[in-house]
């Protein structure tokens, strides 16, 4: 019989055996004409390093929930709330100026902010004509459904 080469099936079996015996300081395997013997440095289980692989960086996790401070608003203010649990953005894109600033006049269809829900953007409109009195939430913060985002003093 011609000399047999190591196959990928052999390799998979050998490596799986080595991995499952990492608590032992010595490893000897003889299958047919293949023999592998190993000595480990301290016998203690070491996490197997992955060859030539840089760690994969995953998507940044969703914004962490903040400590919510109870906020009170005077009764004459129109409170614009978040329709969904999501992430609050004050500007259309990073580096761009905010949609609105405190003191600015707005129309009912003026966009105040964006709530990102599951990667989609929801533009939030003012709903009334008036003046922005307070932007309650910080940019890129996580918000709950119904949480107040912006307070507007309606034009009477």
């Amino acid at each position, binding site marked *: 019989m011609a000399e047999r080469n190591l196959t990928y*099936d052999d390799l998979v079996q050998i490596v799986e055996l080595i991995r499952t015996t*990492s608590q032992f300081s010595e490893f000897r395997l003889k299958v047919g004409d*293949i023999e592998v*013997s*190993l000595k480990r440095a301290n016998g203690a289980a070491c996490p197997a390093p992955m060859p030539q692989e840089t760690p994969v960086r995953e998507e940044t996790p969703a914004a962490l929930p903040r400590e919510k401070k109870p906020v009170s608003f005077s009764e004459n203010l129109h409170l614009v709330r978040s329709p969904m649990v999501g992430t609050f953005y004050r500007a259309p894109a990073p580096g761009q100026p905010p949609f609105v600033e405190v003191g600015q006049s707005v129309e009912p269809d003026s966009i105040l902010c964006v709530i990102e*829900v599951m990667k989609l953007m929801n533009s939030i409109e003012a709903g009334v004509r008036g003046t922005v009195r307070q932007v309650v939430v910080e940019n890129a913060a996580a918000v709950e459904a119904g949480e107040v985002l912006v307070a507007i003093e309606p034009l009477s």
Partner: protein
Amino acid sequence: MRKAQEQKRFDFVDVTLRDAHQCLWGTRMTTAMMTPILSEIDRAGYSVINILGGAVFDVCVRYLHENPWDRIRLLCERLSTPCDALTRGQSLYTFELFPDDVVALNARLLARLGVKVFTVYDALNDNRNLESSVKAGREAGMKINGWMTYTLSPVHTDAYYVERTKELLALGSDYLCIKDPTGLLTPERGATLFPAVVAASGGVPVQLHSHCQSALAPKVYETAIRSGFAAGHTASEPLANGASLPATEEIGEIARRLGVEISLDDDVLKTIAGYFRWLCVREEKPCGRVAQYDPALYEHQIPGGMISNLHYQLETMKLGHRLPEILEEIARVRKDLGYPIVVSPFAQYLVTQATINVVQGERYKTIPDEIRKYARGYYGKVAAPMSPAFLDRLKLKPSELVTERPGEHIEPGLPRLRRELGPGASDGDLLLAAFYDKALLEPLERPKPEYRFRTSPLHELVAWLGARRDIEHARIRFAGTDMTFSA
């Protein structure tokens, strides 16, 4: 068994380096994992090798920190089999629309890097979105492979796909392909759809690209071969099945049994499969597993991987228990929105709108901006009329409707990029700057690893042992070989 009619041969397009790991490994196969097996893939008898798609390009940049142009150039240089690159029409590799000048430059650069087959598709099957890609790709000397995306709905009839076939032919496609991203095709549907498309193709070769989520794909490929399809897209066995495509080995056997000539080399395919099986073990990534037939898939049409992702997203919002309601709502939203195909990015639109509807307890009280754009026709033609329940809430103004080709409402992008990057910028740099923020591109400047272009099981064993810091002494003996390593 009835022989395939007038069918003399069936060709194979390899997707192992692209769609297979996109489906099974989250697209995380690095160039260094591909290079050792390229010469075998080149000799296996594939007619075309698909090396690029939207997710591959994006993951290269965002997560693998590889310059995608370098990968394309290297694979095209190393492979003598024609290489295929896939783009999403006017969206190229992402989901936003790009101006015509950016789309054209991308096609020219791909051709210059060595791509021979340029595959284009649009997620709405609005083939106006392929016009500028096809024109530039053809001028640059590439063959054009025009895809149509399969889905199930009352409007996506055989006649609908015959219309798309005619459009793709009018664009000048050299090949046609039916793409079934969620494995929704059945042998029964294939038996009417496939002959209809072949009859309309006017002799242009038709290909099948179908995934295995419903486990019916091998039978669907058999129907395609019998219907006179010229080629099928398949993957090496360890990276086939499940959310991936069927195994080359399995479809090859089916073709042989039908008496159809194929050019696959079984011994080479075995070596390739051995390497990828080992790669799954080495990288601790899953091999493909044959899926179970699941009739629910035909209702919501959401791929399995996306359901687990959705469940995770819902858990983070403390809504995990509402998943069944949301899956049911997805089917309703899809109907209201005029049956968009459940692929990226529209799959995410449906999922998000359904979640919002369920959580708010009221349909379409909040409509995401992207869905509004979709309904305006901003991304292309909507397949069927949208429901009054949805349109009444949307309150579109006539001035918002887009009826022209989507690329026409986008300003050229290259003059601004050339000003910003200066005269020395390469075409590749200009395009990357068009697609990504600067911060994402900085890691691409890092030095590349040394690539190995051949390997063997013994070589892999030695490299693997050498990378383990806990081993201080190793001895390997087999046949006439005896090796000893000491730290």
